[in-house]
């Protein structure tokens, strides 16, 4: 379930990358914005967190556009190091802005239609309602985005720009607008993911980094620029993260004392980083990527 959400998070990143070859370090921060948006709609406006989704989506789109027109547009002209640093700066900026306005404590959503309820899906398999909903809605978001990109005219224009910006320009497609759209779209998919996530994951200003790394790994695994790749990879990564605690439980159950004896779960994120490293070194194109 989590995997699908991860996939969604990665989706935004892969879109931005596919269209303009820029890696957005601040991606996790967008997620955080989405999470806060979801949180605020729930707590401040006393509305069900589900309503927070479209709010987050719109907010994400807007922030994405602002970032593009305000910053990224200039970065594209510069060397790669500049782009890297620019989006990195953005990440720090957003993170600390949140710190200033929201405080450092983790917060989470406590009420709402689905929070706190769970289903029993067969023997011993408990599924939290929120996660289930998140998974389903993520799938929906994926489907929606896929449809948008492959079936609408604007979507096709976006794809065209991703494949060959200059050729697209000759066809009358404005690269600038496409880039902005990519950012808007990328931003909104991840903020929606954030709004979904906040239902079962506490949010604090530093949550962005972890998810940025997860997103990068997912994108690398799925292949930069590929939408179905992001979905599939998301699932795999979600699985990967859960392997460590399962292995822990299993080894303790078996009475094995592996060198960490049940502490492996502390490394679960390290596995993600390691996975990223290994993927990039050995198969940079990922599963479906067409752009490396």
């Amino acid at each position, binding site marked *: 379930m989590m995997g699908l959400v991860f996939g969604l998070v990665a989706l935004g990143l892969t879109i931005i990358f596919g269209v303009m070859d820029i890696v957005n370090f601040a991606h996790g921060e967008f997620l955080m914005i989405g999470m806060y948006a979801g949180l605020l709609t729930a707590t401040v406006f006393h509305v069900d967190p589900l309503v927070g989704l479209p709010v987050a989506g719109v907010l994400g789109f807007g922030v994405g556009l602002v970032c593009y027109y305000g910053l990224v547009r200039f970065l594209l002209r510069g060397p790669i190091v500049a782009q890297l640093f620019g989006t990195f700066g953005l990440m720090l900026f957003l993170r600390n802005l949140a710190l*200033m306005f929201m405080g450092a404590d983790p917060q989470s959503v406590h009420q709402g239609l689905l929070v706190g309820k769970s289903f029993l899906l067969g023997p011993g398999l408990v599924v939290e309602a929120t996660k289930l909903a998140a998974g389903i809605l993520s799938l929906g978001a994926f489907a929606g985005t896929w449809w948008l990109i492959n079936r609408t005219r604007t979507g096709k224009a976006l794809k065209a720009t991703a494949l060959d910006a200059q050729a697209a320009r000759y066809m009358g497609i404005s690269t600038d607008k496409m880039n902005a759209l990519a950012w808007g779209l990328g931003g909104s998919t991840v903020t929606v993911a954030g709004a979904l996530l906040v239902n079962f994951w506490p949010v604090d200003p530093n949550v962005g980094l972890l998810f940025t790394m997860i997103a990068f790994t997912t994108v690398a695994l799925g292949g930069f620029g590929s939408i179905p790749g992001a979905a599939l990879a998301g699932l795999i990564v979600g699985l990967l993260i859960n392997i460590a605690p399962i292995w822990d439980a299993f080894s303790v159950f078996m009475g094995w004392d592996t060198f960490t004896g049940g502490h492996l779960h502390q490394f679960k994120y390290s596995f993600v980083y390691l996975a990223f490293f290994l993927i990039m070194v050995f198969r940079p194109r990922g599963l479906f990527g067409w752009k490396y």
Partner: protein
Amino acid sequence: MEVLKSAFDFSDFPKTDLCVAGVTAVFLLIFPLLPHSSFAMATMIQFLMFSVYGMGWNTIGGYGGQVDLGKAQYVGIGAYTTAVMIIRWDIPFWFSLPVGMALAVGWSFIIGYPLFRLRGHYFAIATIATSLILKDLFESWSFIGAARGLKIPLKGEMPNFLFLQFRQDYYYYYVMLGFFFVALLCLNWFRHSRIGYQLRSIKDNEEVARSLGIDAHWAKIKTYAVATAFVAAVGSFHACYNFNIEPEDTMSLDLSVLIALMAMLGGAGSLWGPIIGAAILVPMKNYLGAWLGARAGLAGLDLIIYSAIIMIIAAFEPRGIWGLITRLREPRRSHGHPES
């Protein structure tokens, strides 16, 4: 020896630059004799530390053009080696220093080999990944104190030059200043050396560099090792200066980023860049932090300011402050001179 000669060769800088450098050097030498607060002293020491961090980073990040956001892991290796050696085996700083550096360099070769198959963004993210993995490892390793870190006990009377333990900060200051000058000379040698030229050629156009006989992969790995050595050395110093180290403050991503940031702000790829960057950011961080820290509601404002600065610099003058200075000078010169 030609190595020494090129280390001291600053002749390709215009006279004004050398004068400014000279004045600054004198200032640095006499600083402790001037009236100062202990806060200022601490800031100066940090400035020196970050300058050396930055100079190390600059070799691969600036001259080499590969942005490395994982340097903090080597700070950790250096710091922990020294700490462990003092705590467990009573080994003085001056012995643990080279050991720490050797371990760090060894590690850098191990991960460098696969790491340098990547470039650009991917490289940067991979460096973050390796740094975080190592940090996680250190946080769980009980031999070195896990997340609680290590505390270095006092070893007899202070001032203690063997173990680098002093009551007064100015001893630390001068030791670090020594490191600083050594690092500067090393960096100067580097940019005049064969490997320095090779790296710059790689940054310029890697394909052309290869056609001129340069094994780009290996050259980058070697340079990365140099950068690591610088960083690990300061890490060792850090352990002695702070008496108390833990993974969160020696190996965090924030530290890696700060190092890279200062070098980039000041001007990656130039000799003075990292120093300028540190000179601006360290005092700013400290004084801004102190001033704002009193007002609880503005936590994080200092970082907001830097990140804004980073974004502006990245967008408009990616070559940093030194880049700005050279750009302003360019029209005045009748013929170009090699800027380094």
